[in-house]
């Protein structure tokens, strides 16, 4: 009898747990229509690679800002070679699967961070930013699922550097738009292998590439960015 009571109590507690679980699901799981807001903070962990203004996009599965191993869009090429995110964000805004886009307010220098907010009914996050003392390196989050996050929950991710593959890594002063060189940004010619890969890193003049405008200080290893996401509503 005593054992039966315990069993009933356990069943009752279990039922309460599931009821509570259901209630949470209604509040917090993605329904495809509910508006949620997120705060996204991007921290630059590199030694000497300022980040161009961050492009941030909330979207559904039908949108993909880039595909690793595949050719970059022209808008992503512009972002990766010049740091100008306007075309990348415009393309996203025009996509029916995108529920919000925003740009960071400015360059994020090494050691600094920038925060932006996004509100929308979709739950995938894509961000992209150029490492400006390079030919065409970007740091990216490519469609990270946020739908499981509860209100006020935080998530920390680290992002690596990718090579957009649209411009050869000459490291020449004429080709690098950042403060290390002040050279050209976007050039429509695609003189690299034309697919997105993990970035091989900087060689630099200090390591034997005499034509490089970059010094050893511009080298980087992964992760280049720490990204802190907080669901605020």
């Amino acid at each position, binding site marked *: 009898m005593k054992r039966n009571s315990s069993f009933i109590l356990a069943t009752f507690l279990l039922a309460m747990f599931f009821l509570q679980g259901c209630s949470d699901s209604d509040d917090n799981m993605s329904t495809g229509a509910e508006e949620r807001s997120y705060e996204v903070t991007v921290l630059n*962990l590199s*030694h*000497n690679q300022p980040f161009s203004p961050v492009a941030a996009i909330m979207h559904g599965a039908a949108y993909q800002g880039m595909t690793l191993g595949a050719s970059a869009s022209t808008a992503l090429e512009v972002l990766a070679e010049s740091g100008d995110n306007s075309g990348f964000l415009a393309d996203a805004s025009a996509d029916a699967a995108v529920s919000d886009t925003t740009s960071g307010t400015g360059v994020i220098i*090494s050691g600094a961070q920038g925060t932006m907010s996004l509100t929308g009914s979709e739950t995938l996050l894509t961000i992209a930013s150029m490492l400006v003392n390079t030919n065409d390196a970007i740091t990216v989050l490519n469609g990270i699922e946020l739908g499981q996050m509860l209100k006020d929950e935080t998530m920390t991710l680290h992002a690596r550097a990718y090579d957009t593959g649209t411009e050869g890594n000459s490291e020449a002063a004429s080709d690098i738009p950042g403060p290390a060189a002040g050279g050209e940004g976007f050039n429509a010619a695609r003189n690299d292998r034309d697919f997105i890969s993990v970035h091989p890193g900087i060689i630099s003049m*200090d390591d034997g590439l005499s034509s490089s405008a970059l010094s*050893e200080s511009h*080298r980087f290893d*992964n*992760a280049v960015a*720490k990204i802190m996401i907080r669901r605020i509503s």
Partner: protein
Amino acid sequence: MKKMLTTAFATLVFATPTLAQNVRVDVTNLSNAIYFTPLLVATHPESTHLFEGGSPASANLQAMAEGGDTSGLIADLMGISADISDNPAGGLLVPGASTHAIFPKGGQNTHLSLVAMLLPTNDGFVGLDALEIPSSEGIYTYFLNAYDAGTEANDEIINGGGATGTPGIPADPGGNSGTGGSGVTTTENNTMVHIHRGVLGDMDPVAGKSDLTTNVHRWLNPIAKIVITVN
């Protein structure tokens, strides 16, 4: 024989409760020729940070990163009742080697941190910043990055300089370094804690810019592996 049995029995009795409720942390040095100075591994509350990317290093972190001195960080951790494993390897953790630390499970110390200086570097360290320890029993693997404390220019000159604020690298325990380097740089662009850009090195054992050796001392992240076993 009888003594052996007694010992075995005692080990069994001792081991059973330890296995039942603890967190074991195994650490492996994944680098080719970078030595970890005596490790500091600790569990602590969520709000504790030995270091944070994008923030200046504390004086105690600087002492660890430039000279391998963990005493200040240990004092900080003792002040908040952290569980501390001081120097689990009993000295340097050499490339390829592993060591482990065991912590009690439960209570306030829910997060795990780890730091050790990287030799030979100016102020590089392997770091884990307040990882939440999984609560469910299981085996969890993580890979750790090399950080730069941002407190000392990476001149790559081995001169015994390990004291806070003294330029240079204390030593290369592996004996793979050269001499006569002119110095890679005298400035530190990012003075916050950040991901280490790696060492430059050179291939000239008696001159060049660096006392480090390019094809020996370079690494890419991750520089360490940890396996957390929650029992």
